[in-house]
Structure formats: structure tokens, C-alpha cells
């Protein structure tokens, strides 16, 4: 077998800054990457297999022969990290496999189940209302990201976890560093430590307080730490994960979804009277925007055949959710935004045992935020017509840094 020189392989993720924010990959990039399974070069100079078809992505992410543990040698990292950058990784279950992962995740499944999320919908609605008041007071024009997209999921996750929202600047900045591929490795390391220290103090206080508070971290402190099932350090790691996951993902979905809907004014207007359709719309937004654009990296721990290609133990593979969500064998006219299509089988939340545990919450936040926005601001439109909107190109979770709107 001859091995192609590294430099001949296309670089993943691509770095085209001129792309429209609503287009995950332009036509040339599609041609380069959208093979069934292709080999790419990563920014670390390692190579990995890019898995892009809907069926292949599902098969790969569900297969127990792929590990999510990024500390394993050969794991396909998308950025250079300082040695030991993740420091104390205890509790960070999205990077664990098998029984270790299941043990921690299962302590949370009841918390995020659909019935419980329905119960907190009034809280989400209140939070959205307050944010929309702020938007109104600030403009027009005003920035939708600053006043709505970021504060809504941030306030909700703080409330659920029992983290004081007053500290939001502190953890929003750190949360952003951790998912920024361009952040210097030392900064990543420092911010992980600071976030862990902060949540450690908070969790210790909750453990000491015992009975009273009824938030997720207090409940876990009481029901799991006191019983010896969960170490304090593990609870801290879970808190870091939930806080970060609760921040950027939904925030970026609200921002991009608003931009997309404002380009489809009839659909935006219809949201006001057609809230019943909003659930389906949310799935189509998730599919079409696919904000985890660089995909989910895994390490093969055994030889596995995916899409007709043998991926050998020790090789890296990346499941490209955004391409799977635009696969024409899974969706008709996949590059069209069609708010009335049945898009539930998208993989925007990932697939397999790591599939986003917070998805019922994310869906509810997105639906309520968009419906209320359309109700309160029927004449909403972007306040800038020319020029590039500031996008998060180096973030693992793609989105807009600002969306100036007027009404």
C-alpha cells in the first residue's frame, strides 16, 4: 500500500471565512469532503477518516468499537493541547466509554426527561419574556445575541443547576475558551482549572448545606454524594459539562435560527399563529443549521467497517453531523430549508449513547424563544444589510457573535 503524502490530504475542518453563516460547507468543500469515507489531515498533522453519510454516521456513533476518550493515544484532536490540558477530568462523562460513562449519565437521565422539561416550560417562558423586554428596551436597533440568544439558555441552565447567574460573565468567558479551537493551550488549561475551582466551591457549599435547595446540583449532592455513590470531584466535572453544554449550543441555535427565519419572512410570520408547527420547525432548524459543524471525533478501538471502508483499531474517525444532515439519501432536497418536512431523523444532537442528554430542554428553549420572538416582534429584520456578520469560525459550536436587529 502506498501512503499519500500528508500535505496532499485536504485539511479538516476547512477554513473558508467568506462562507454565508447559514451554509455549513460551500460547493467546493462538499466535493472535497462528501465522499462516503475519506481521509483528511487535521490541524495537529494527524490524519483521520471523515464519515459523512447519514447511515454511516449513525452506525459509527452507535458502534461500541469507537471511543470518545480524548486522552487515548491516537485520538483525533482538532487542536493542539498542552500536555494534561484537561487536568482533572473526573465527572466529564462525554469523554468516557462504556460502564463508566453510563454510571454518571444515568444520574442525570431523570433530570432531563421530557416530563420534567415540560414542567419547567413556564420558567423558560418567563425567562424569554424578560429577555424580550430587554431587547425592546435596548433598541431598535439592538443585538439579539446579547439580549436574547445568550441570556435565555444561560439563565435557564443556571437556574436548573443552582449556579448564580450573577457570575455569568465569568463562566461564559471560560465556557467559550473551552470550545474555541484557536484558544492558546495555556489559556484552555487555565480556564478549565478556574471553572472547576469555581464549581468546586459551589458544590462543596451545596454538600454542606444538605437538605434545603431544590436545584440539580443540590439534589445530586444530597442523593448521590452523601450516599457515597458520587465523589465531589465527579459532581464538579458533571457541573462543568452541563454548564458549558447549556450555554453555547442553544444560544447559537437561537441566533442562527432567527437569521434564517428572517430570510423567510412568511415562515417567520406564520410562527405567530402556527405555534403547533413549531416542534417540526425546530427539528428542521437543527438539521439545516447543524451547529456542531466540525463533527464528533472518535478513536477506533477495534477494526470496524464503515461505509465500505475498514477503519482499523488505533485510527481516528470524525462523524460529520452537518454533512449527514444534508445527505440526499436521508432527506429530499437536503439543501433546501423546508419548515414543513419531517426532519426528526437528523443527527444534530449526535447519535449513540452520547446523544445530547439536554435535547428536550434545548428543543423547548428554541421553540419558545422563536415563537415568542415572532409574537412580540412581528416586524423584526436584520439591522445590517451589507457586510459580514461576526461568526464563530473557530468554535466547536458554530454560531453568530452578534445579530443586530431592528423592528
Amino acid at each position, binding site marked *: 500500500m502506498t501512503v499519500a503524502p500528508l500535505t496532499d490530504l485536504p485539511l479538516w475542518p476547512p477554513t473558508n471565512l467568506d462562507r454565508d453563516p447559514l451554509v455549513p460547507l460551500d460547493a467546493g468543500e462538499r466535493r472535497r469532503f462528501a465522499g462516503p469515507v475519506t481521509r483528511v489531515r487535521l490541524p495537529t498533522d494527524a490524519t483521520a477518516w471523515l464519515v459523512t453519510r447519514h447511515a454511516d454516521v449513525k452506525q459509527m456513533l452507535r458502534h461500541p468499537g469507537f471511543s470518545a476518550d480524548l486522552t487515548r493515544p491516537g485520538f483525533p484532536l482538532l487542536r493542539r493541547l498542552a500536555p494534561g490540558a484537561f487536568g482533572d477530568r473526573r465527572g466529564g462523562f462525554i469523554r468516557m466509554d462504556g460502564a463508566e460513562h453510563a454510571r454518571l449519565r444515568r444520574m442525570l437521565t431523570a433530570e432531563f426527561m421530557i416530563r420534567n422539561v415540560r414542567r419547567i416550560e413556564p420558567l423558560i417562558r418567563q425567562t424569554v419574556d424578560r429577555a424580550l423586554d430587554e431587547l425592546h428596551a435596548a433598541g431598535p436597533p439592538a443585538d439579539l445575541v446579547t439580549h436574547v440568544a445568550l441570556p435565555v439558555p444561560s439563565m435557564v441552565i443556571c437556574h436548573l443547576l443552582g449556579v448564580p447567574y450573577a457570575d455569568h460573565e465569568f463562566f461564559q468567558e471560560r465556557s467559550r475558551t473551552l470550545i474555541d479551537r484557536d484558544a492558546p493551550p495555556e489559556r484552555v488549561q487555565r480556564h478549565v482549572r478556574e471553572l472547576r475551582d469555581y464549581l468546586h466551591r459551589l458544590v462543596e457549599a451545596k454538600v454542606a448545606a444538605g437538605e434545603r435547595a431544590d436545584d440539580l446540583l443540590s439534589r445530586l449532592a444530597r442523593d448521590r454524594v452523601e450516599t457515597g455513590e458520587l465523589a465531589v470531584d465527579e459532581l464538579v466535572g458533571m457541573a462543568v459539562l452541563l454548564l458549558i453544554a447549556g450555554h453555547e449550543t442553544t444560544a447559537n441555535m437561537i441566533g442562527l435560527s432567527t437569521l434564517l427565519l428572517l430570510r423567510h419572512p412568511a415562515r417567520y410570520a406564520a410562527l405567530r399563529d402556527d405555534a403547533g408547527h413549531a416542534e417540526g420547525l425546530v427539528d428542521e432548524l437543527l438539521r439545516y443549521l447543524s451547529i456542531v459543524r466540525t463533527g464528533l471525533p472518535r478513536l477506533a478501538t477495534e477494526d470496524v467497517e464503515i461505509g465500505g471502508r475498514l477503519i482499523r483499531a488505533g485510527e481516528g474517525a470524525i462523524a460529520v453531523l452537518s454533512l449527514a444532515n444534508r445527505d440526499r439519501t436521508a432527506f429530499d432536497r437536503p439543501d433546501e430549508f423546508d419548515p414543513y418536512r419531517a426532519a426528526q431523523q437528523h443527527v444534530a444532537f449526535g447519535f449513540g*449513547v452520547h*446523544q*445530547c*442528554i439536554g435535547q428536550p430542554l434545548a428543543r423547548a428553549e428554541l421553540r419558545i424563544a422563536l415563537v415568542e420572538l415572532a409574537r412580540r416582534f412581528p416586524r423584526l429584520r436584520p439591522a445590517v444589510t451589507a457586510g459580514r456578520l461576526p461568526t464563530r469560525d473557530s468554535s466547536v459550536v458554530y454560531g453568530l457573535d452578534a445579530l443586530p436587529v431592528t423592528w
Partner: protein
Amino acid sequence: MSGAVRVRVDRERCCGAGNCVVTAPEVFDQDDADGLVLLRRAEPPADAADRVRLAVELCPAGAITVAPRPVPERSSTP
């Protein structure tokens, strides 16, 4: 596709993402205690069969399986 199905769930595999409950709420539920899947009806009505099959596809963990329901030996139903 038609035909009645028999449904099985594997709580050991379930990761509690709840897609099944959204897709076929008359067939699946989530346990209040642990958020994991509960089967409400192992032999759902025939008109739920397509949604059950969709739930099989949407389940990220491969925790749901369906088999065709065997035709009862005596075809007379009370």
C-alpha cells in the same frame, strides 16, 4: 408498511434521550425514577406500528427492537 409488531426495550442500553416517548407516547414512557425507557404496550395497536419503527430508528442507543407479531393461532377475536 403494515402488520402488527411486538416491541422490546433494553433498559440496560437505554441512555434516556427520550426520542421514543416523543415519537410514540402511547407505546413508550420514561421512568420517573431513572428517566430510562418503560414499555407501556408491548403489543401496540397496528396503527402505531409505523411510529414504533421510526422510534427504533431514532433511538440513539439501539435499545428498542421490534419483531413481527405472530398471527394468533385462533383468528377469532372476542
